[in-house]
């Protein structure tokens, strides 16, 4: 479980994220929506311990991140960015990367990577070099690379934003099924409320670095918490 308690994140001495309280439960996917520059990605980076907090705590399984060793904590999570960020190696080697970092044996790495490759239907790509993949294929590999680690927390920063609508729809469907099957705790950042509704049980709306509302898509649409949320929803519908 993740518990965010009164955190402040600053950049160049300016506050960019100020969250009083937000929890993510075991097996839950929480979507974060909000306009550009609202602090969504900053929250994800803070959750990955990739950005320091100037105040407050993030607790993972009841223990503040500061008390977890940086590496120990990061090896319990996994991060997928908007850009696939694959390395110049084969698909199989890319997928095995996190396992290699953890010093896993070749046999186990091969076995685990093979299982995820099959699950995501990318067997035909496994020997190809990452540079030869299409955008959709590369993002699928990026997802497999994160999922192969069986992370306790999966962080997804607009992973489908750069894809064409049909590929996007397919991948969202597949990811939704995988998250439900694995009962994995995940945080999914998106601009799109419909995508958020498909993938998550709850949605947090972040505007100007603050959480304005947490609820289901239905609740947020029918009862916006304040004018900023209402204005954001109007912008989305235009």
């Amino acid at each position, binding site marked *: 479980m993740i518990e965010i308690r009164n955190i402040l994140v600053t950049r160049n001495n300016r506050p960019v994220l100020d969250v009083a309280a937000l929890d993510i439960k075991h097996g839950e996917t929480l979507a974060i929506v909000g306009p550009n520059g609202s602090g969504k990605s900053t929250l994800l980076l803070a959750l990955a311990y990739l950005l320091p907090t100037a105040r407050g705590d993030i607790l993972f399984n009841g223990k503040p991140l500061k008390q977890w060793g940086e590496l120990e904590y990061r090896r319990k999570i996994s991060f997928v960015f908007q850009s696939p*960020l694959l*390395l*110049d190696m084969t698909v199989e080697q890319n997928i095995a990367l996190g396992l290699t970092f953890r010093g896993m044996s070749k046999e186990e790495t091969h076995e685990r990577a093979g299982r995820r490759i099959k699950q995501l239907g990318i067997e035909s790509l496994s020997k190809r070099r990452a540079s030869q993949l299409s955008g959709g294929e590369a993002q699928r590999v990026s997802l497999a690379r994160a999922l192969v680690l069986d992370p306790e927390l999966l962080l997804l920063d607009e992973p489908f934003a750069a894809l064409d609508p049909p590929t996007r729809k397919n991948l969202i469907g597949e990811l939704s099924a995988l998250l439900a099957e694995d009962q994995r705790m995940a945080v999914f950042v998106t601009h799109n409320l419909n995508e958020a509704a498909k993938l998550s049980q709850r949605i947090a709306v972040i505007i100007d670095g603050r959480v304005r509302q947490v609820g289901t898509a239905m609740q947020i649409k029918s009862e916006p918490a304040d004018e900023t949320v209402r204005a954001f929803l109007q912008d989305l519908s235009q």
Partner: protein
Amino acid sequence: MLFDSEVFQITLLSLQVSATATLISLLIGLPLGTWLALGSFRGRSFILSIINTGMALPPVVVGLVVAMMLWRSGPLGDLHLIYTPVAIIMAQTIIAAPVVTGLTAAALEALDPHLRQQLLGLGASHLQTIWYLWREARLPLLAALMSGFGSVISEVGASMMVGGNIRGQTRVLTTAIVLETSKGEFGTALALSTLLLVLTYLINLALTWIQQRGQKR
């Protein structure tokens, strides 16, 4: 008149001195360039500007400074290194290190800024992260190595000033070319120049082959 064995000795010394200086520059420049590319600290831009200026250091100025340091009355005079191959290596390292450092920093800065976060986010340790960033930037890093070597194998001013062009001890190809030209032995100077060019070409050909092979994979 230069005999075959003397030419061989001069060529070998040129390669030994420049290769050693390039290797030391790599040992300094790779970590320093990485630190400058990945670090965020006060004074980073200033240090980078100094390194970038150092990339255009005139060898003769480096030779002068190193000669003053190693001169009998200089701060390192007791080491008795002036007019030795070690002195040439020291001067050439000062010439090549900023080149390797600056190009290493530029190579790593050219990578996607999220790549480092992605590697950390997949559970890489800091050392693993740096290793994989080097791996991703291996082609421009090889270019940095080639530039570092190129800057020292071809320089003459520093080698002349701190090496003294002593026959059988500190004479390298470039200083031998200067000497033969001053004696009016243009044929020998031309032959040595051709040898230097061919050597430089062969070394760069090998490195370019490695670089291109990496690109095609």
